[in-house]
């Protein structure tokens, strides 16, 4: 009989369903096959012209029906697709999920294609005056829905029959992890027996790419797209903008066992700490990220020695990888050089709002499959970052516990600790 309460007397939270979509494909099977064979999903951009752009590659999801229909519709489809896989695996009712929804998704804006078509449907006035006049004459609300921050979650709530007011959240590149954390906390507080946590991001528009590019955040390694994302390498030059989604069905272990569900893993702990140093850079001593890792370990009731593997944030930007190394080496001490730490982003790029959820999904699979996906493109190690990044080739290994890091603009630091088995 498994223990149903954790070290703090709270309900243990199990994972009973996992879904994922990335540029590598739809679903766990395809993604896992690609990840463990070290295949990259990064490719040249074809969704829009790349004239005048310094970065012309991405990890966009180009193979869904909504891939060319704008950020809001694609984000919805990504979320729905991943959630469908997760809920189906859990064996719960796919139309009547019966627990709350936590959705990490990108902030929405009116797409340029809509702006252009609204504007050019009329010729009176100029600029925003014309847009507003055209807007108030519209007879349908589908464009409006794409501009409402709550609409994607509202549709998902309809689709899956989740309970109550769905929460849409953004903690920048930590959003996916925050969605999971909110679900874990709701179950621990006894508000529900199950929760659906999704991270989805289909917002790789030209404007999004240009905005990140203007902040010098993106790799410009255009000639060999699959080599562009090279976390922890000396010649890393930025992240690769990408899309994707990850979904987890979270359940109290007690409820999951009671209905005979297969336990795919355990959400042991969550930790966070905000950084007050700068909008895009972390405090030079790494103290907020260090505090977030330590908070996650404490919440999980595990010591540093009990983490088998780190699923790194590992964005391939000069700043992140340096600071992540500093934080991890501070927490794990001498052990850091010998524990496996790999970055899924070397193959799928940075899926932004989805990243924390996508990488939690892969972390759980790493434990279940006893295979650690590699950090690819590790041809030119950064001598200042001495880590076992599981270079270029997958590794067979028993992994009982994982730390997954997510760090974002705005001082967001969120870490998750997952385990293969209940305590």
């Amino acid at each position: 009989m498994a223990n149903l309460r954790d070290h703090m007397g709270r309900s243990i939270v199990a994972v009973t369903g996992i879904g994922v979509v990335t540029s590598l494909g739809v679903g766990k099977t395809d993604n896992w096959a690609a990840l463990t064979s070290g295949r990259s999903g990064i490719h040249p951009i074809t969704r829009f012209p790349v004239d005048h752009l310094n970065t012309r590659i991405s990890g966009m999801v180009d193979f869904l029906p909504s891939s060319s229909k704008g950020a809001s519709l694609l984000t919805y489809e990504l979320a729905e697709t991943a959630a469908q896989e997760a809920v189906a695996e859990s064996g719960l009712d796919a139309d009547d999920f019966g627990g709350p929804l936590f959705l990490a998704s990108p902030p929405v804006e009116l797409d340029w294609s809509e702006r252009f078509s609204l504007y050019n449907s009329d010729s009176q006035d100029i600029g925003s005056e014309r847009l507003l006049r055209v807007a108030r004459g519209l007879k349908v609300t589908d464009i409006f829905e794409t501009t409402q921050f709550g609409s994607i979650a509202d549709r998902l709530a309809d689709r899956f029959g989740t309970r109550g007011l769905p929460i849409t959240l953004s903690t920048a590149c930590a959003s996916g992890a925050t969605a999971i954390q909110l679900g874990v906390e709701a179950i621990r507080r006894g508000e529900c027996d199950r929760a659906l946590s999704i991270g989805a991001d289909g917002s790789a528009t030209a404007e999004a790419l240009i905005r990140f590019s203007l902040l010098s955040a993106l790799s410009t390694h255009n000639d060999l797209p699959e080599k562009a994302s090279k976390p922890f390498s000396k010649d890393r030059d930025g992240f690769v903008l990408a899309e994707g989604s990850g979904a987890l069905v979270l359940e109290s272990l007690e409820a999951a066992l009671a209905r005979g569900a297969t336990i795919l893993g355990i959400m042991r702990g969550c930790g966070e700490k905000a950084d007050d140093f700068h909008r895009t850079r972390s405090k030079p001593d790494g103290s907020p990220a260090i505090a977030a890792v330590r908070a996650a370990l404490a919440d999980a009731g595990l010591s540093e020695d009990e983490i088998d593997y780190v699923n790194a944030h590992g964005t391939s930007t000069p700043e992140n990888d340096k600071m992540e190394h500093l934080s991890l080496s501070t927490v794990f001490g001498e052990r850091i050089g010998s524990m496996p730490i790999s970055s899924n982003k070397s193959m799928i790029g940075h899926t932004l709002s989805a990243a924390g959820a996508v990488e939690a999904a892969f972390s759980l699979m790493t434990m279940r499959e006893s295979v650690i996906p590699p950090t690819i493109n590790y041809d030119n190690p950064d001598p200042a970052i001495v880590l076992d990044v599981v270079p270029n080739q997958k590794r067979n290994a028993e992994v009982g516990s994982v730390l997954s890091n997510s760090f974002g603009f705005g001082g967001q630091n969120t870490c998750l600790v997952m385990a293969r088995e209940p305590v």
Partner: protein
Amino acid sequence: MSSPHDVVISGIGLVSSLGEGPDAHWQKLTQPGVRPVLEASRFAPYTVHPLPAIDWNLQIAKRGDQRQMETWQRLGTYSAGLALDDAGIKGDDGLCATMDMVVAAGGGERDEAVDAAILAASESRNDRDVLLNEKLTTELRPTLFLAQLSNLLAGNISIVHKVTGSSRTFMGEEGAGVAAVETAAARIRSGQSTHILVGGAFQTEHSDMLLGYELAGYLHRGAWKPVWQRQGGEGGGVVTGSGGAFLVLEQREHAVKRGRKIYAELGAVVSGRARRPRGGLDNEIAALLKQAALPNGELLAISGASGAHAATAAEKSVLDANPAIAARAFSSLTGHMKEAQFPFAVALAALAADRKAAYPVFDAANEKPFSGIPRAVLATAIGYHQFEGVALVKAAD
């Protein structure tokens, strides 16, 4: 009966067209027949309630920080600072470092001039996607992106006020504000947090913020009227306002130990998602009130009604059906503040409980007098388009 783990409100930061701070709002809103501050020409045919004059330096000391933000983030950071000051937390490094934060946010301001230039050029270009790349790569200010990001309001609050326990941003119009308050209260009740900063801001004086409503025809046109009187008027009934509302929620024991003034206790916070296209929003609102377990007797209700025709009619029918409820729709005087709407309603409810007096009617034709001492006050936010929430705020003792 109070308990050490109650959630109490120990700090309030408010900004609206009426002024800033709880005292200014109390004074204005308790003046019988107070007139709204309106700006009817800048965005004609729409009327908005504009921001008052604000000296940003009072809450955002560094000019460099101010420059990194546009008005929305400044307004939120400023309102948050007011709440922290009011709760005696601002500048207390220990309390700020352990303070959690839940911000309800939309997006920040786009560069209207760049957008207008691109739209103008699009009239004579067929290669609009190339035009977009050409203009955006050369004309966007790099840091503007950060001023637009939803979670960077919270990020700026961390930087300026040093609130760093945790930082979460909820999105989704009024529902984001409801969920933020609900989640924050649940964290305190369960012992996860001792003190939390929660709130939001909305800066309506920007065409994109109006467009966000008008793509579905939600804005009221023509002369200003109180929210309850906009049914059948030209347009959709919403008059927006710029403003911000932040609350410091605290575990009662924690606030008492610090010797802080407690405005009110935050009782039940109840949220919902009515499937509005199927009808029956009124039944859903009635169910929320039932869940909130309203006390017997006369009850003051601070309504966040937006004026949006369908949602406001549904809310009015439910409130009118209960003869004990005396509603006050504050948006008549402040305008609709989207993500900040629910925190604003809770703040006004807490003020009435604290001052042991009700607000006079804001609309004599539709609101009835309340003469007693409000021991409990209802706060509502029924989304103009989707999502609903109510809270019961109780006298501190």
